[in-house]
């Protein structure tokens, strides 16, 4: 059986019944997205695949289409073709921070991705509490692994 072969989907909706994002957001309906992919051949709205939370509940797919992997493949395509969408912007910000620091520095990532909009993610009172409790790292120090990580990015880029 060819895994991720979208043409195998027979629209049972198991994925959608199991999908915790679909439970709370009608726009994200894996069954309907599979149908659109079957009829359109390629993808319509690149923003939709970034709503998948990668929870792997849809692995129960009786036809082995595994929507979670289909979404991952579509994201890969969007990233490599440099699509102008919010998901690709997030990936770029994340990768840049890892490449520079070796680990994820949450505040740097948020600022790079959202700029000043990052302020709106948390109410002031909660942000203050996070800071007071020592949960916001504002240091710009690079981690011990940073040089080696940078090298690995470089080598793989040229491979």
């Amino acid at each position, binding site marked *: 059986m060819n895994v991720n072969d979208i043409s195998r989907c027979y629209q049972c909706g198991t994925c959608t019944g199991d999908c915790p994002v679909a439970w709370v*957001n009608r726009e994200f309906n894996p069954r309907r997205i599979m149908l659109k992919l079957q009829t359109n051949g390629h993808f319509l709205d690149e923003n939709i695949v970034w709503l998948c939370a990668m929870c792997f509940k849809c692995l129960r797919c009786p036809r082995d289409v595994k929507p979670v992997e289909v979404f991952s493949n579509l994201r890969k395509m969007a990233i490599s073709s440099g699509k102008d969408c919010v998901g690709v912007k997030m990936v770029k910000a994340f990768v840049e921070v890892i490449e520079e620091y070796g680990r994820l*520095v949450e505040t740097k990532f948020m600022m790079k991705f959202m700029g000043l909009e990052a302020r709106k993610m948390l109410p002031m*009172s909660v942000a203050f509490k996070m800071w007071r409790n020592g*949960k916001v*790292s504002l240091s710009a120090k690079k981690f011990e*692994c940073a040089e080696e990580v940078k*090298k690995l990015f470089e080598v793989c880029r040229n491979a």
Partner: protein
Amino acid sequence: MLRYAYFPGCSAESSAIEYDMSTRAVCEKLGIELVDIPFNCCGTHIVEEYDECTWLALNARNFALAEELEMDVVTICSSCFFNMKKAKAMMENEDVRAKVNKALESIGRKYEGKVDVKHILGVLVDDYGIDGIIRKVERLVEVKASPYYGCLILRPEEIVRFDNAEAPSKMEMLLENIGCEIAENPHKADCCGAPIMLIDRESHLRMVKKILEGASGADCIVTVCPLCHYALDVGQEVLGYERRIPILHVTQIVGLALGIPAEKLGLDKNITPTKSLLEKVI
């Protein structure tokens, strides 16, 4: 004596600082040695989707560090756990490993495929063992605790091979043996939506609310992942959730049973106050 190369993950120095603190305190008390390594980010599915070679190389570097110590890796993060398990499985293929080792050569390291990846919950329940923990309990934590597993410690089952993905029981077993009464949450293996937090905040918060509601009646929710913890702990503050419920990292509640002082477990660092729970225990 159990010894592991310790991979706390990137959030251990910031948003999940108390998970790291309580893990170190619990392991010290139990006599489990955690050896710090100059680890790098596991990359998560984000780097994997950006470039598979880089993602594998990042993970191989961490494994190589553990191999140099002849130890397995233990992580406290479900997302790192899944990523490392997946990378490890892919690098069991010798061609893939050879290709990755070519990249590692540039930093003078090599991964030989000998490392196993563990999650702290597995270390406590399977490696150290419930019987051993029972012997070290100094006070029973007689509260109603609701286990929340989330996703990546359980799924995909064939990669993580941790527990029954449909009906997990490792946390229940651990909590019952330190004195807790289990409050079942029908959403205990559903997603908190942390990975889409920055893309669709509204959906994420609705997912959080479902999980909180599923645990209503419990004195606390117990998590095994810093992202799940952030989602539920900070999420209820953001939501202005009226029935505040303390969210404890699994090592925080085990630490209480082992008689470790609350400050050493970072119980004052949780965003949703843990005072109501501590009053019942101490």
